[in-house]
């Protein structure tokens, strides 16, 4: 089954998003910040979609996205940012890092699940 990696320092969001995705048939791995996200991605080749917050301790989500494309040389995993941030500067940086899309919190699962499934199943 395709894996989705949910990266957020908030346990509330990890629970909310993770539970929703599991209920909709997706397999979920979670990480608590960008550094943990990179480690989880390195360890599991089945991850096809990363859903990540931007503002996190240790390593933010945009830096993690840049490292996924750069250091990990992983150009295939789909990355979606799920964040309170909504500034053009942030989004431009995300686009440059090859992220696929942007969602401003709060999470509304029904609005995105169809696309998430497509992205997770490659």
């Amino acid at each position, binding site marked *: 089954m395709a894996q989705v990696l949910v990266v957020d320092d*908030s*346990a*509330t*969001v990890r*629970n*909310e998003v993770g539970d929703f995705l599991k209920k909709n048939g997706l397999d979920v791995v979670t990480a608590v910040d960008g550094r943990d996200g990179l480690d989880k991605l390195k360890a599991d080749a089945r991850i096809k979609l990363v859903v990540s917050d931007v*503002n996190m301790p240790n390593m933010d989500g945009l830096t993690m996205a840049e490292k996924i494309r750069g250091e990990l040389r992983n150009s295939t995993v789909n990355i*979606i940012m799920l*964040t*309170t*941030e*909504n*500034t*053009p*500067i942030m*989004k431009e940086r*995300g*686009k440059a890092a090859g*992220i*696929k*899309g*942007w*969602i*401003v*919190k*709060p*999470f*509304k699962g029904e*609005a*995105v699940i169809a*696309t998430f499934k497509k992205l997770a199943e490659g």
Partner: protein
Amino acid sequence: MQEAAQLVSKVLVLNDDAEVRGHIKAFCDAHHLIPVKPQAGAALTVLKSNVDLGAIFMQETYTGEGGNALELARAIHAIRPELPIFLRREAASHLDDLPDLYRGIFTAAYTTSTIDELAPLIDKNIFSFQYPNALVRGITEITKNTLETQFKGVEVRTEAPYMVRDRIIYGELFTLIPLESTWCRGYMMLQTEEGPLIKYVEDGRTHISRDPANFRDINHVMGEVTNLIWGAFKNRFISNEPVDWRQSQVPLIVNHEHRYISFGSEDPQLCFRYTLVDPNGEATPLVLYQRFVFNLSWAPEKFKENEVLTEDLFESGELELF
């Protein structure tokens, strides 16, 4: 500056003279003050439970605590020095003849006939900051919407925002997050009680369901509520203009014994109170206090709401594909 919001403030009235009550009430009504009158003997209890006062109006011959009013004022000042105390006297509307021990406790004195002379002092001590109406209204909207997404099966009730001088921390849990912009620099603080929030988690009313729940679970809930409000605040009210990060900072001081937090400024704070109520009456109401403390910089004349470009019209929760 845009139109300023008309704010109110709660004042504790220690008065047992029925003839004067009407004068004080009329003055409060005219100056956007909400009088709070304690039961006899309960002034200090009220001070322990009310964390959102703007000032105290006290009668020099007040007998409600069964003792010397000036000594009561001294006791109040010892525990709540940030609250201005206005002393009503029978003849003199000054403090000159009070013993040194008491004189410094009071902000000003007045008589029934000179109460209106307090107006400028009320403005100076409580309503010294003007807040744009769009900001005050927007904060309420953002916060109410956030609470509705983070708590299930509750109705979020709001009260008219008000000014406080209290520095007392409500409940056991509070969060702080900085707000930095070209028109404001300071903090947003959320405060609540641990007990009801733990019960909300255990009852499955949050996105973390755990039974039994512990303090870490509710930390996560409040953390995300704070994060969501902060994000929405930034998106709506903080422009992309760069802020000079080399600007000054001051230490925040928390005294756990006295449940007291200082931001280094004596200015009054903008306060909102939200109550989460279960329409079926099954859950204990959960009260959240939200304060905005612009202790580092406040320039409301530069305030403006961010314009939303048509191409950016993605609702929160919608996926914007690149």
